[in-house]
């Protein structure tokens, strides 16, 4: 580990003292991060079909995008997959997190831990397994199969984020609810869940974004219903790409900015100190 950090030594000195160099490095880092984003946005307004030569300003690719039923249906499909996956994995993942935090019997604990394995399994393994499972069962590959695979992949992410929040919540909060007249289920519904709501929002946003952008699982499990956007983009990149893709990318970027802003603002609206972003970065 130490040897890997050696190249940064020159930087480190100034970080501990005056952070000029570190700030410059971070600025450069963010700049490099944004270079392709700028290219995508810029070329989405290119009047030429070229992806390397900028001809002039035009919105033709946006028109293409909004008139391209294929792309639009892929976009709708991806939104649908992400939304359903988000909702289902939040429900199942939260159940898992609660159970992991609370069950005491050994078999239950083992079961709960096993359910976290997808977290340390590369997507391609999950994808291959899902594909073989679905084709083996004779299930038609469709948005449903993509959603099932994505949920399987997402449950453990939600569980880990939510569990992090749960473990920082005193047991006494729940006992207080019971004390004040709640049944175990009411305590869960009226107190525990509202308390961990920021973590649920954070997990939801993260899952939405991960699933929306996920390619590998979708690639293995998608059927013929409109394909998820990532799969369509992949096949376009592999074959002949249309600059309309840049328009798609720009729109996705806008949505992403919106989501992130929401994650910053929503917890504040709910009067919470811990923003969802902290939880994302903490998870």
């Amino acid at each position: 580990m130490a040897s890997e950090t050696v190249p940064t030594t020159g930087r480190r000195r100034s970080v501990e003292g005056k952070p000029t160099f570190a700030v410059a490095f971070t600025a450069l880092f963010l700049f490099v991060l944004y270079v392709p984003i700028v290219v995508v946005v810029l070329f989405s307004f290119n009047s030429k079909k070229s992806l390397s030569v900028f001809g002039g300003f035009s919105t033709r690719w946006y028109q293409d995008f909004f008139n391209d039923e294929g792309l639009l249906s892929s976009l709708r499909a991806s939104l649908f997959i992400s939304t359903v996956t988000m909702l289902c994995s939040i429900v199942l993942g939260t159940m898992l997190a609660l159970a992991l935090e609370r069950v005491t019997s050994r078999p239950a604990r083992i079961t709960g831990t096993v359910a976290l394995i997808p977290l340390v399994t590369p997507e391609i393994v999950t994808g291959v397994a899902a594909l073989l499972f679905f084709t083996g069962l004779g299930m038609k590959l469709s948005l449903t199969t993509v959603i099932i695979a994505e949920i399987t992949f997402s449950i453990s992410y939600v569980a880990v984020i939510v569990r992090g929040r749960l473990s920082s919540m005193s047991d006494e909060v729940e006992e207080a609810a019971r004390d004040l007249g709640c049944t175990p289920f009411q305590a869960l519904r009226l107190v525990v869940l509202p308390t961990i709501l920021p973590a649920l929002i954070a997990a939801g946003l993260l899952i939405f974004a991960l699933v929306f952008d996920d390619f590998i699982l979708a690639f293995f499990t998608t059927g013929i219903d409109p394909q998820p956007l990532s799969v369509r983009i992949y096949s376009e990149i592999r074959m002949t790409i249309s600059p309309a893709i840049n328009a798609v990318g720009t729109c996705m970027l806008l949505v992403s900015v919106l989501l992130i802003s929401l994650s910053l603002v929503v917890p504040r609206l709910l009067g919470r100190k811990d923003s969802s972003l902290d939880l994302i970065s903490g998870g």
Partner: protein
Amino acid sequence: MSLQVEDALVDLAKEKRRSPTRTRLWNVLLAPPALWMLVFFISSVTIVVLLSFGHVGDTGKPVFGFSLDNYKALSDPVYLKVFIRSAVFAIATTAISLVLGYPVAYTIALHGGKYKNALIAFLVIPFFASYLIRMYAWSTLLADEGLINQLLRDTGLSSGIRFLNTPGAVIAGLVYGSIVFMVLPIYASLERMDTALIEAGKDLYHSPLQTFFAVTVPATRAGMLGGVLLVFLPALGDFVSAQLLGGPSTYMIGNLIQQQFFEGQNQPLGSALTVVLMLALLIFMVFYLRATQRVNREK
């Protein structure tokens, strides 16, 4: 009775103090996710393992069996080469992400001030836009006649550099795709770190550098280990980066598996490859867990 024993008892009491009526709710809650994972994950992984002992039938469809042929085929040096290449790529990706990501996390966490959240948001936004499109944008930028090479030529710095279709490009793609998962856990652990530690360290060690290695790095080891896991695992199974940015000799395990399922039409061989990948990860996880346990013990 010694105080330690009492503490242990208090802990024990905490651990087991739930009443049976309450435990039932938790078991009820555990059932749906557990059942889901059993049906859609455990059993499907079981199919992969079983199919890895099968072969391709006469109609080109996979058939179960009990043969080790696929594993024998994998002993071919060609496959070993791919496994080693994948491991090297994944390790390089992780190391580079750590070296580049740490200073960024450090700067934002300790010098971000009131812009901390905004900076993190700024950092995360690109990762929520399509990875594939960003990759494609890079490949146009770094093309032989792309913008960057044009700049290099115009400024006379170089007659052109071949960036794409090299092992370096594949690793860069992987780093670009997952470095945020290195930055965020490190950032979180730096945030949680008591900055008084650094102040204390400055009194103890004469140079800031020594302070950094003696105080900051150990205090954020958990974050770094988290980041390592989040970067290494996807990198090892990736096939997109090699597909879009790689050259003729940058095939990774992911590409091989993908090919067996979608081109080579040899699902049993693909399953065997998947099983071997899982085993490799199992070994990695054993070492990883040992490392994290050591960190926890030190705490």
